[in-house]
């Protein structure tokens, strides 16, 4: 191993990018990790629990941040995006833009400062379900462990408060957008995914009915560091749900939306059914599905839920959701295709199992890479020295993502050593 290897550029700081970064760095290769949000962790750190073990993702996540923090081979850039990549395998040059955080990190900021602020801005970490102040700490497990200033959100009063209350040197309100170029030997694309926009499914009523939520929102409702402190409550009235429906394939396996299977939504809904059953022992859950796709060892998880008397599985795709104007119950139009009937289906909360859309679908990597019709990268990416891992290439769960990321790290290392 030669010490003068060029670094590996990892684009995306979710579980895929973090894994690739630590795997390469821990065998001695330099890594530059670029993340567009103020902290690492992406989708996974927003989840309440992992399936199938039902452990909180922050547990594994904190191990990863510790591995990153303690490793001199990894250079982390948050609030940063890759603007341009040129060159060839072994000699890429990347231009990186870094947005100002206005927080220096040299002096710590006390929570009492944040409490004095008046500005409110939507909290993207909680899917916009609550707000933060103009100066905020991204979330309890944030890495880097730094506050952020959203300068545009600050009121004039807030600016005065910050000047007065923050210790000197903690903030630098003149911090500017920064651009720099780095020479790298290989690139790993780990840009991940976002949830399919439920606004595209007007028949399922997300925009019409407050108690229709998405699976991503459910994760935040269930998480202790979420907007409700971990209580799953109906958004319309803040009451506990008693009868919850999961609507599978909300956009996925649908030629009018996402023609592919999003791979994780079945397990995600089964996991969330358990959140509800654990939080509310009397609550009933019904899962409406086309097929329950729990392959291999995950099937056991499904069969455990089948045994639960309070959980019903109905084979049938939900066509429409409407709210009863009087009782505010949600009425589902669905055929139970096994019974051959359209049951009277009323619930007080509905979770749409929305699918996975690659971030590259609307923000492609500034390189001539091979994408499929839906914006996923082809595994080989089409450019030598550029590798992709995780949901940038296809919908997949964390377990598969980390394996692919390790593989991508190995391919990048081979690339550097080929010289």
């Amino acid at each position: 191993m030669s010490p003068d290897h060029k670094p590996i550029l990892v684009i995306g700081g979710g579980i895929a990018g973090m894994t690739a970064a630590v795997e390469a760095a821990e065998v001695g290769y330099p890594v530059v990790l670029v993340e567009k949000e103020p902290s690492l962790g992406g989708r996974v750190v927003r989840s309440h629990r992992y399936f199938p073990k039902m452990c909180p993702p922050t547990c594994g996540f904190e191990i990863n941040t510790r591995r990153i923090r303690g490793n001199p081979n990894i250079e982390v850039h948050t609030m940063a995006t890759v603007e341009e990549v040129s060159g060839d395998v072994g000699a890429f040059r990347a231009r990186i833009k870094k947005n100002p955080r206005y927080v220096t990190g040299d002096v710590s900021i006390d929570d009492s400062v944040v409490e004095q602020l008046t500005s409110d801005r939507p909290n993207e970490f909680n899917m916009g379900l609550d707000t933060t102040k103009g100066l905020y700490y991204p979330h309890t497990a944030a890495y880097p462990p730094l506050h952020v200033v959203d300068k545009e959100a600050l009121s004039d009063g807030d600016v005065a408060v910050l000047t007065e209350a923050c210790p000197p040197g903690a903030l630098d309100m003149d911090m500017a957008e920064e651009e720099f170029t780095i020479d790298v030997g290989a690139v790993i694309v780990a840009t991940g995914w976002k949830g399919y926009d439920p606004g595209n499914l007007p028949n399922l009523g997300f925009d019409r009915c407050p108690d229709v939520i998405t699976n991503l929102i459910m994760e935040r409702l269930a998480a202790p560091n979420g907007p409700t402190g971990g209580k799953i409550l109906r958004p319309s009235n803040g009451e506990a749900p008693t009868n919850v429906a999961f609507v599978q394939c909300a956009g996925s396996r649908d030629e009018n939306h996402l023609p592919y299977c999003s791979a994780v939504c079945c397990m995600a809904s089964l996991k969330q059914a358990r959140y509800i059953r654990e939080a509310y022992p009397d609550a009933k859950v019904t899962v409406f599905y086309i097929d329950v796709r729990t392959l291999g060892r995950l099937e056991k998880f499904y069969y455990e839920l089948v045994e639960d008397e309070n959980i019903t599985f109905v084979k049938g795709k939900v066509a429409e959701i409407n709210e009863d104007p009087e009782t505010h119950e949600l009425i589902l139009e669905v055929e139970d295709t096994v019974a051959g009937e359209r049951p009277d289906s009323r619930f007080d909360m509905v979770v749409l199992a929305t699918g996975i859309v690659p971030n590259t679908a609307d923000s492609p990597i500034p390189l001539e890479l091979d994408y499929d019709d839906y914006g996923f990268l082809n595994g080989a990416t089409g450019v030598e020295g550029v590798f992709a891992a995780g949901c940038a290439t296809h919908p997949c769960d964390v377990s598969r993502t980390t394996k692919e990321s390790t593989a991508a790290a190995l391919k990048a290392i081979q690339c550097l050593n080929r010289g």
Partner: protein
Amino acid sequence: METSEITVPEGENGQDEATPLDIPSPSTNGRPVRVDPDLEFIRALRRSGGDSLKKCMQCGNCSAACPLSPHVNPFPRKEMAWALWGMKDRLLTDPDIWLCHHCNDCSTNCPRQTRPGDVLGAVRQQCILHYAFPGILAKWVSHPKYLPILLAIPAILLGLAARYREAIGEFLGFSVPMGDRIVYSFAPMFPHWLLNSFFGLFTVLALAAAIIGVWRFSRGLKRSSVWGENPEPVKGVLASLGSVLLKVVNHDRFTTCDTDHSRSISHFFVFFGFIALTVVTIMVITGPFNPLIRGDFVYPFSLWSPWKLLANIGGLAVLAGILLMIWERLYFGHLAGTSSYFDWLLVWSIFLVVASGFATEILHMLRMVPHRHVAYFVHLVFVFGLLVYLPYSKFAHMLYRTTAMVMAERYGREAGKGAES
């Protein structure tokens, strides 16, 4: 009145015991069914508008999206399964294919982009083809290569009738009005007694054929599995017929559709236009004996005669409706549905009947000879086609659909409701 008795079939071949091929199906009340695919039937469906059939994944979105589908044994998902498996007998005895009004709410929402609405349309065509009597005429009507025969039959028959009108008149005891004995009319070419007896004869024949077809169909309907075990009628036949006719007149079922509302408007125009034209035709035929119009029964009618007015308004209504239908089918096929030859044949037949009718009327008023005679002859050929081929063409939907709707009404099979059992 309570004559119909419905028996549930015991499997496709009358067998009850399971074999390795048997698949228990909810749509057959849990009984095992031997699937014996009729591949030629599947091919026929795919040729006539059901080509998307094989993409179906049986998710049930269509049945749930359908505003007309009952809550017990809803359609069209089960029909899609039967069509996939080539279960011809189930489809041809199924009332639900006729409860569908082809609004395509199912097709526009289908996650596989199959078109269940169009598949049901194709099944309805096969249904008419299956039950119509004599079958050879249904075969001729359903395939373009027989179109020349269909046109030649009325042309030859009408030509012969005109050519030998005097001999026929002598035989029947009528005379052909000649020269200055008559006012300006078509009577020298086709005297009224000739027209009335010619079309009267063939209408009676067509009616008899239609009754045979519908009788066979209603016997088939009773064997359908959708009624459930031992269904009890909730209404008498006449009461059911009454409420169905009211629904048809109001276009109730048409107007529940989300996807393509304009179809109810075009159908409304054609429907009421035809009723007006039928009323006028009956009045004209029965004219000399009909006390309702006896007083002003003088040929030709003045343009301002109430009967002529009704005829012209009716004709214009049909023309407007059919032009709207043509426009929808040409430019909004994804909503109106795939148009097969069977669909187009009816649409163009109706258009040609009214177009040639108005052409005759205008040429007649302009006193253009022999143009008016040619136009009239062509008009009569098309009228013959529409009327006499009714039991075999898509026009028969008025009989088959009404029959199925009456049976559904009788057994409480309504949109959003279960069969009362």
